[in-house]
């Protein structure tokens, strides 16, 4: 199998003082599971809509929508993670690893960066660590997960793959207020 290629052709971009960092995490296995709330898959995944949980095997389980979960894991584990889902009843498991670009915005100013391009209330009590939600980011529909790192806010943002390059540029553009520089060849225009 040839290497997995991300739509984002840029490495991480950070502000010099580290207050914000934008990086590509597209190379993550992403498995979407649909199952009725009374299914055994749902019981197994055991995360309500809007929340997330790190499974013992390292898989991050997100309640992305009512009766829908997205599972994140290392990119080579896609098949294994997909196979781990209990498919008793009407359950579907779709590997969307190739279908979604994913990036992370992190650092003390991550919330301020996101608040420039996303209308959702990101206050700690409205969107706590672990919160899963969907919204528009720089005019692209995205799934978001707040997953803090080392006490600083951090957001995993995924979008339809074809928007990936644009969205990355938009997030870096939003970070320039806090000192990040747009790398050569990257522009929102």
């Amino acid at each position, binding site marked *: *199998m*040839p*290497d*997995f*290629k*991300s*739509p984002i*052709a840029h490495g991480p971009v950070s502000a010099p003082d580290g207050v914000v960092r934008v990086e590509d995490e597209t*190379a993550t296995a992403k498995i*979407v599971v*649909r199952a009725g709330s009374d299914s055994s898959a749902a019981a197994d995944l055991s995360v*309500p*809509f*809007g*929340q997330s949980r790190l499974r013992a095997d390292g898989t991050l389980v997100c*309640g992305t929508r009512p009766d829908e979960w997205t599972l994140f894991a290392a990119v080579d584990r896609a098949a294994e993670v997909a196979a781990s889902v209990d498919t008793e009843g*009407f359950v*579907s498991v*779709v590997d*969307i*690893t*190739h*279908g*979604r670009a994913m990036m992370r915005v992190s650092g003390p100013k991550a919330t*301020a960066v996101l*608040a*420039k*391009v*996303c*209308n959702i*209330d*990101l*206050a700690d*009590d*409205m*969107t*706590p660590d672990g*919160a*899963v*939600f969907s919204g528009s980011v*720089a*005019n*692209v529909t995205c799934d978001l997960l707040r997953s803090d790192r080392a006490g600083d806010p951090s957001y995993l943002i995924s979008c*339809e*793959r*074809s*928007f990936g*390059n*644009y*969205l990355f540029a*938009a997030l870096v*553009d*939003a970070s*320039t*207020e806090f000192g990040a520089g747009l790398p050569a060849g990257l522009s*929102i*225009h």
Partner: protein
Amino acid sequence: MTGNRLPERPGEVIDRGTSLAFTWNGQGYTGYQGDTIASALAASGVEVFARSMKYKRRRGIMTADHWDPNLFVQVGDEPNVRAGSRCLVAGMEVSAQNVWPSLKFDVGAVNQMVGRFLTSGFYYKTFMRPKWFWHNVYQKVLRKFAPGGRIFWESSTHGAYDKRYAHPDVLVAGGGPAGMGAAIAAAEAGASVMLVEHEPELGGHLRWGDAADLAALAELTSAVEAHPGIEVVIDSTVTGRYDHNWMAVVQRSHEIAPERLIKARAASLVVAPGLIERPYVFAGNDTPGVMLSGAVRRLINLWAVKPGTRAVVLSANPEGDAAIADLEAAGVEIVAALDARAGEDIVEVEGRGRVDKVVLGDGRTVSADLVVIGIGWTAPTSLLNMAGDRPVYDPSAARYFPNQLPDGVLATGGITGNGTTDELVAHGRATGSLAASRALRSRHDRRVLAARARNPEGPKPEFLQDTRTPLARVPHPECYRSSTHGMVDLSEDVSSKDLVQASKEGFDSIELMKRYTTVTMGPSQGKLETVNASAVLAEARNMDMVDIGTTVWRPPYAPISLGALAGRIFEPIRRSALQDWHEAHGASPLLAGQWVRPDHYGDPVGEARNVRQNVGIIDVTPLGKLDLRGPDVTKLLELVYVNKWQKLDIGRVRYGTMVAEDGVVSDDGVTGRLGENHYLMTTTSSGAGAVWEMLEDYLQTYRPEWDVHVTAVTGGLTSINVAGPKCRELLLRLVEGVDLSPEAFPYFHVRRGSVAGVADCIIWRIGFTGELSYELHVPSGHALHVWESLLANGEDLGVRPFGVESQRILRLEKGHYIVGQDTDGLTKAPSAGLGGLVKLDKPDTLGLPELKAAYARTDLPMLVAIQPDDPQVVPMEAAQIVDGDSNRILGRITSSRMSPTLGRSVCLGQVDPSLAAAGTKVTILLIDGRRVTGTVQEHHAHVDPEGVRQNA
């Protein structure tokens, strides 16, 4: 240069250590850091800043703040800068606007002499004859008189602006004592607060007040700054309150952008804008040297500028009285201190470039160069009106007061009554606590409702009732006059005479009067004019002010630049995994919706020919792709497509057309069955989103009992069509796990296998080009490898990429129509020539009754293939098909190209049913006016109607 700068004042905001050089009408000036453009010029003795709009009258400082109607200047390439509030920056090139040839001498000033003819609306009553004169002469002259600054449309700052969102519990509009009190109390109650102040510093009127005011200011400011729960946003205006407390805040001096728009969803809004001083209407009231009391106090106390030497002051309130004290302290001689409360008055001011003589109410004429007016207030109720309030006029206090506010909006401070600083702060604090309690309760509700927030612990905060002690309404005389030549609207040059005349002509409601005279339609939007205009109308109609009302306040409260409203340019662009490759290989980009695609690689005709002769590959990723799973997918397909779907075996693909509930063709594509309960549906590129939402709609609201899961996989599968007689040979070199022989894998079938080592590719035998072709759907992370492998392994076969334009040629040769190009918003299924595809005997399909009705009709247009009789003529797409030599329209060409395969032009067109039979001659009107004939073809396909090529 005359030095009008006073010795140091206790509250001054200028930094005398930092001089700033700038130019005014080309001449060099200096001011201090902290000056506005106007204060710096006034300090240097400048008295005339502008010419008025209609009569070109000289104009000077009037309010010395943002709303000053006379201080509009051009700064470099920026028009309409408010010199009364724009801070001076070194190097500014400032000039007067709306003057010709110069501010000193303006030719247009002759209008003053003919002013009596230029009453409001005069232009409606003349210039009608002769007809051509209006357009060719009068209108051009009128346009020359347009006021305002100049646009330098070569220098753009589009995209340099910025925006952000905010979600404060409490947003306070106005940073005077009341607003600061509200912010502090709300923050103390645990609310997150955004405090917005229009001026460059907090403080409101305290800033230009006395020692006690300055002390109170210092105390309040440090309390605000000390509280971490308050975000202070200065030099910023709350410009709009929209439904559900969606607030627009324009931030002017932000370091990263010329202006920034903050969009805030506030749970509670506290409106604390204070009051705006109202001008007085008397003859000559627009002469330079006539200033409002606030203007002289600001000039003296903030910028240490002496506003004149000999002053007449007319005061009706303590602020007017305080102006007298300030003037005296500044060494201005008070020629007359008139008390409006005691009936003293000013009748007229004379003077051209500056006040010279003042005629007083008692008949005396005195000489003075400054007239100071402190006769009352306008309540800036704009934000309250936007929140649905209809403020009510109170004659005893001579101003409007808030009436009925929704729960999420509270008012405090001067807009609600009068008080000492302590009383204002106390009222502000009470308002802030109330606002916080309501906001925190609403926040609790939101947390309960939003799944991501998890349920809040703790009880629901209480909804406090309003127990505030209202501020007093101190009696104030109503100082209005309508029977003078004074200006009511200085920006629009509308006098009270004009208003009285308009009322007599039938424009006797405030709204009609506004539209006829343009009063309140200028840059200050009624802030200075609206109450005076109502008062004039009330007197003219002998009615009460209360029954007249005001014109409607609308956003923005303070004008906001288009650049800030636009903000950053966030225009999402979609790129396939191969787009970088296309661009690196000379593809000319084609923007199709949000997608950027390869239109061609330099030679569309050659690329098309290559497909017919050898093999070509095209990136068709934007095709919508939906993964459908579940036992009820067939039912869904039966519902949304016009054709039958029951007997689609695993491994087969079928073409389908969709219509909307009105029977109009809405989309098309193929759907393949990959497994027992697993299908892949494709849609048109532009229809992908709509089809997905439509499927969800019917699944969720119409047939919730059906078990179907829909997943959009458009970008996840990179779609590559491999087409041409040699494509099988090419694929044989790369495909594993699939028998590509025509017998094992015939037309309209689907297989899964690996391509160039990439597993899990979906391969189906279909194509838009009419050639033998396979469409590969490759996991996008590996798509580039597959694409490059196809090219690398087919060199000997002549493989070449082709773009969208070649595909358009090829599909037209084959007669495949494009929804939206060959069909339009009225094309019902039978018109598209779907023939037997449509099944009317299904129990349920979208638009079924309309389909039945349409098939019963004989008058619907038909889509047909047409060949111009002259093979070299390619009629333009949209060329009309007409009835012989007449102009009667019988159809149109919807697609046309020169066919490289046939060496002749080929078309699709919609025609009247009378022309639809094969062999019918039609007349086509070319764009150059020629009429040519064409012949309707038997099949839509011009090339290979039997399908030998695609079935190979």
